């Protein structure tokens, strides 16, 4: 037992003191801080004043249309004024209300040039059958699709109002027509046939964000620490320290000592990240920014974090033992990448199904894959976070995962015991079986 902890301590100490480890951890910590603060940073950079869009108030008509462009402009102005947080402000440009179109255009361009307005709109005939003219937005910068869509909605509203006026509806009737129909989505808990409504909206956003973040963390740490284990073991083999080690300590102690040591490294790394994120989130500025996005960390139930830790631990052991087994078969570090490829694909597959599942957590594909042990740590965790699967399903998947982990540990230990003494080219399955027999395992 003391040997075991000696191996754990040696693995941990050597890894944590490595420059590469310290630097990677720092870089990721900085990145995390930036990501957490991103909403705040963005809000700081984007100006709060809406874009000013100019229009000509001239009473010139457009061919094929009895609507005056100046009226449309003032209609848009009124539309945005009514909004709580208007994205645009329409202004009538002074000096652009003469009858001379050339003078109007000059006045608009001048206003744009000296910064009075950010853009201006002009109107043109939309075709013979169309009573309403089409609008063109002109600016020095390119407006995105969302801006165009917003303006289109505004213009549509002005057009509708215009059309309704001719029907002679009262204001009340108009309001009734304009009042939007409402839809909302509510997640409920079923208990003895009784539906219980949950606090909606807010926690959903938090759940999505937290599940996504934890999923990513699970995947990253399991992959990197697994890789590290395989690399270390292969390096020990290729530098032949292995020959001295196997005569000092039983291979099983050695393998599990290494796995536990690396687990501690991984946990330390996660702890650093969690602390960094927690500090950043607790800063008042980012808290508000997150709330604006509908994310409130306090809404995430504690059980989700416990499940995350549980799945991390078991998932780690499943993959770590397999990586150790693979690492023990390879004699040269250059060959390792190829050897761990299948494991990486499985891990990557689980992660991508998880990302897909975030948007469709109750699809049967996600349900089925959550029972496949190699994917369970990712997918079942995702389902717990997003759709609250029946408890028996969680238990079944956990039992399957545990059984697979034990089997993987047993198999890897056997492979490890044999593999560490085999040099030369990577053995085939047949050669491995033969060697196991020869070594009386």
């Amino acid at each position, binding site marked *: 037992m003391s040997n075991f902890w000696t191996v754990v301590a040696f693995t941990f100490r050597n890894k944590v003191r490595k420059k590469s480890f310290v630097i990677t951890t720092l870089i990721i910590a900085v990145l995390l801080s930036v990501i957490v603060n991103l909403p705040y940073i963005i809000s700081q950079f984007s100006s709060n004043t809406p874009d000013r869009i100019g229009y000509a108030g001239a009473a010139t008509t457009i061919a094929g249309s009895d609507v005056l462009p100046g009226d449309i402009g003032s209609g848009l102005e009124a539309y945005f004024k009514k909004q709580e947080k208007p994205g645009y402000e329409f202004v009538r440009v002074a000096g652009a209300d003469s009858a001379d179109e050339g003078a109007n255009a000059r006045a608009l361009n001048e206003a744009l040039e000296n910064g009075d307005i950010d853009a201006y709109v002009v109107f043109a005939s939309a075709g013979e059958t169309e009573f309403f003219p089409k609008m063109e937005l002109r600016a020095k910068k390119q407006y995105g699709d969302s801006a165009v869509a917003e303006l289109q909605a505004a213009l549509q509203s002005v057009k509708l109002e215009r059309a309704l006026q001719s029907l002679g509806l009262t204001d009340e009737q108009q309001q009734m027509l304009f009042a939007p129909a409402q839809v909302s989505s509510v997640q409920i808990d079923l208990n003895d046939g009784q539906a219980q409504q949950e606090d909606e909206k807010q926690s959903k956003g938090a759940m999505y964000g937290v599940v996504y973040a934890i999923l990513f963390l699970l995947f990253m740490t399991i992959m990197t620490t697994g890789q590290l284990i395989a690399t270390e073991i292969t390096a020990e083999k290729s530098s032949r*320290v292995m020959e*001295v080690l196997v*005569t*000092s*300590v039983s291979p099983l102690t050695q393998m599990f000592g290494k796995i536990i040591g690396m687990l501690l490294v991984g946990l330390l790394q996660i702890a650093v990240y969690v602390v960094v994120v927690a500090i950043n989130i607790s800063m008042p500025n980012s808290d508000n920014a997150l709330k604006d996005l509908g994310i409130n960390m306090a809404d995430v139930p504690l059980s989700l974090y416990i499940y995350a830790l549980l799945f991390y631990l078991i998932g780690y052991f499943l993959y770590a033992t397999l990586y150790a087994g693979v690492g023990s078969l390879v004699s040269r570090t250059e060959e390792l990448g190829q050897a761990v490829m299948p494991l990486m694909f499985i891990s990557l597959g689980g992660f991508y199904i998880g990302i897909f599942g975030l948007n469709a957590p109750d699809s049967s594909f996600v349900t089925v894959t959550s029972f496949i042990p190699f994917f369970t740590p990712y997918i079942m965790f995702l389902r717990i976070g997003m759709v609250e699967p029946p408890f028996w399903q969680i238990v079944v998947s956990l039992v399957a995962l545990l059984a697979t982990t034990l089997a993987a540990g047993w198999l890897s230990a056997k492979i490890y015991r044999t593999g560490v003494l085999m040099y030369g080219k990577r053995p085939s399955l047949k050669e491995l079986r033969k060697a196991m027999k*020869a070594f*009386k395992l």
Partner: protein
Amino acid sequence: MIPLAIDRIYKNYGDKTAVNGLSFEVEQGEIYGLLGANGAGKTTTMRMVLGLIYPDEGSIRYNGQPYGKEQLHNLGYLPEERGLYPKVKVSEQLIYLAQLKGMTKKAAEQSLRRWLEQFEVPEYYDKKVEELSKGNQQKIQFVAAVIHDPQIVILDEAFSGLDPVNVELLKAAVKGLRDSGKTILFSTHRMEHVEELCRNITIMHRSNPVVQGDIKTIKSRYPRERVMLAASRDITGLEQLEGVRYVTKHENVTEIGIASEQAAQHILTHALGQAEIERFELMRPTLNEIFIKSVGDRHE
């Protein structure tokens, strides 16, 4: 109780035989030589002694006991290919290895300092292995094998790739171990080391032990069939003498192969008739020749 007794061990890898019925015993304070060409089964034998693999048949006993976990602390191993962590400090990894062998950290530190002192390299304590020259890495490797004061030490090609100064240094260390009562199993290709260090040897060839016993007896089994002759001037007509098989003139000495020991007397009287004799020696075959003979004869 014999520290290390190997009794008719066999080992097969699939249908390939690696060790075929090998037996020997190593006493306390003895260096036992295990010789053989590459692939003769030396490393497999050593691995079986180390308990890394088990023999298919036969037994290995340590002080009369079969292999068990407690032997891990009792054994020290210097592998043929050097094995240390290149990027870890000498002190750190040797103390780690010693701790794995059951030493306390403090005792390991003391032992390490003592050994570095003996090899005249105390400043390596805080160096990384990759910063050391090959010869010095080998010293560290040697320390790794003996730092925990094991009763049985297994040295696989301990002196390969070293310069003469370092060979002498390590040789002295091995002799020191022997004199302090260790049981040492030693493999090498270099016969002069074996003649200097070992009392008993086994020469292995293609998994089989072909020559076994103490070096003197082995040598006496081979007839003396060579004469080294040096005289004040050239001796002629040696080829015509009865029992002479060949005559080879070296720079300062003439080597004469003979069919029987009586022929030596004919050569001596013949030579005395012609010149003053500076050197006349009836040579036993060297271990090197015995090795080549016992291994080479069976090559076909």
